[in-house]
């Protein structure tokens, strides 16, 4: 769409972006996701110490051109530090950052040619909306007429032409964040960083903005690196999620992969809700069994890392657990439990159960008009397909 979206502005001569990636030959393909030449961001062995404490330790990451990558994690996991390192607001203790093939590790922030959207919008209070959006273009010494044209074009794109002459504080939070997005895309940076941009908005607005950002990403073909602690946001928007924990990458992959194939208990727990059964693996009938507080469970086929005698955790997602066992129980793991509570969340029903050993289990199903009503305290047999479970290595304490 959008005839008004011009090809990227030729950056000024001092910018790294118009140089050929002179260091491309150094960029060994370090991750499977993107070959070096396609990478917008290449981060290698990046570490950051604050007073001897590692905020980020030895992170290697590649973000492909046009990709939408989300850095997800709790506060203190290093995601903001990584973003600050890429934007240049912080300098790394060790490691290398390549942006668009050029070494940007020590490049000043204002020469990196990036765009960034902040949680608090960071609009200039003393400028009108028009002046705010025009600011990055004036910095680039673009002619008056072209500035006018381009500002009005992006305002049209975000459907806020009518507020051009207002001050930011006269606008709602959602409008302000759209202006801040417009200010970013108006100069066509090849890479846009977003630091919890929707954190200050209420839920409804947030969902609308998520779609709007996704749409802009698809239309503009720009690379986006998005930081959030909100798993739903990450799952909704991303091509790829980089889950961070304690200054390291815990796991990265598509939202699907992270949801269905978490590799650690932390990943399983952070994304989606989960039933986790910690226990010990033992050999049984040629296969493996997990002995845990709730009993001995059949486990899905797993790779060689899981051997008899080792500790492991079995993950079963709530939506895979049925409260009523179907007639054909083959290939299913069944355990007895007592219903503690049932919560109806519109289209979804969530059951809270407890095993005789006292373990809590959550089961989830779609709400149906003719759903069998269970009473609190009912003894039930919950079950799940053994193959829907997933074995995870036990957390090192």
């Amino acid at each position, binding site marked *: 769409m959008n005839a008004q979206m011009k090809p990227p502005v030729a950056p000024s001569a001092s910018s790294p972006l118009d140089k050929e990636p002179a260091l491309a030959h150094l960029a060994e393909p370090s991750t499977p996701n993107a070959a070096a030449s396609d990478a917008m961001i290449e981060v290698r062995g990046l570490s950051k110490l604050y007073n001897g404490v590692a905020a980020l330790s030895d992170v290697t990451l590649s973000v492909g051109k046009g990709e939408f990558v989300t850095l997800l994690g709790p506060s203190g996991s290093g995601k903001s530090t990584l973003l600050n390192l890429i934007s*240049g607001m912080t300098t790394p203790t060790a490691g290398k950052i390549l942006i668009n093939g050029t070494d940007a590790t020590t490049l000043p922030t204002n*020469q990196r040619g990036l765009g960034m959207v902040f949680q608090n919008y960071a609009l*200039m209070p003393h400028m009108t909306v028009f002046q705010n959006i025009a600011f990055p273009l004036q910095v680039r010494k673009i002619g008056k007429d072209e500035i006018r044209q381009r500002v009005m074009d992006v305002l049209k794109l975000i459907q806020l032409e009518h507020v051009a002459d207002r001050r930011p504080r006269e606008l709602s939070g959602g409008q302000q964040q759209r202006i801040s997005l417009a200010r970013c895309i108006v100069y066509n940076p090849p890479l846009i960083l977003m630091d919890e941009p929707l954190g200050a908005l209420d839920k409804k607005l947030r969902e609308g903005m998520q779609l709007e950002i996704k749409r802009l990403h698809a239309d503009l073909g720009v690379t986006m690196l998005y930081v959030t602690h909100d798993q739903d946001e990450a799952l909704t928007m991303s091509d790829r999620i980089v889950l961070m924990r304690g200054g390291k990458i815990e796991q990265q992959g598509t939202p699907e992969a992270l949801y269905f194939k978490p590799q650690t208990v932390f990943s399983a727990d952070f994304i989606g809700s989960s039933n986790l059964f910690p226990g010990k693996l033992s050999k049984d009938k040629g296969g493996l069994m997990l002995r845990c507080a709730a009993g001995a469970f059949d486990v899905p086929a797993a790779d060689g890392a899981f051997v008899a005698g080792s500790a492991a955790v079995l993950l079963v997602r709530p939506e895979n657990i049925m409260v009523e066992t179907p007639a054909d129980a083959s290939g299913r793991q069944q355990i007895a439990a007592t219903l503690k509570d049932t919560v109806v969340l519109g289209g979804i029903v969530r059951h809270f159960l407890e095993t005789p050993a006292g373990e809590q289990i959550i089961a989830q199903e779609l709400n149906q008009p003719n759903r069998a009503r269970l009473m609190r305290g009912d003894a039930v047999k919950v079950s799940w397909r053994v193959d829907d479970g997933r074995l995870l290595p036990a957390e090192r304490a």
Partner: protein
Amino acid sequence: MTRPLRTAAVFFVPVVAWACYLFLLLPSVIVFPISFGTGGEFEFPPRAFSLELYRQFFTDAAWWGAMTQSLMIALMTALATTVLGLPAAYALQRASLPGAGLINGFIMGPLLVPVIVLGLGLYLQFAPWNLLNRDVSLFLSHTMLAVPFMMISVGASLRHLDPTLENAALIMGASKPAIFFKVVLPQLKAGIAAGALFAFLISFDEVIVAYFVTGPETQTLPVKMYSAMRWELSPVIAAASTLVTVFSILLAIGIMMLQRKEKQQ
């Protein structure tokens, strides 16, 4: 507690307060009617209305010249205080300099030292350098005295300034000087203006240092007034006092309005 005692106590606070407001205000306002007296002796209330004292003030080069001298020195002080104080206040807020606390304390120093000591020190300094009775030494001394007020005023504005805005501008590609002039400066306007008015007023009212370092050619209005009060008791003092008070009140109101504007932002 007995009833009469209680009643007395209830009235005590407002009565003392109002008496105090009167006591504070009266000396500043009484000069207005006195200045419209007929000359001769100071009298309050004046017996007849006249502009005689103002005529004398504006026709006597010693008075009138002292006032233009004061205005000029105050203007130069305000300018110098802004030019020197603003970059320093910004730098101290936005950089982590080693010993920043000490530097800040040093800059506030002129507030803490008795002015008479500074007056003597500057006198001892300028005398051998042949710098007494010079405009430049006077306005630089006043700049030294006024700088803390600029730092306080601009510092308050800077603390309200969100550093994210500067980082956002930096990411958008702006150079640091451009950020200072286009992002920071416009948002500090009220604080800078208040600081400059402060500086102007400090210089315009300052007696002691000016008394030590000025001479006949560089005499400021407060020095002229001071010597007139001590030695001549010329009635023109009343007119001069009124003019000074009008200036002070206008500037003070300006400062207070700027500070309120700052708070509302």
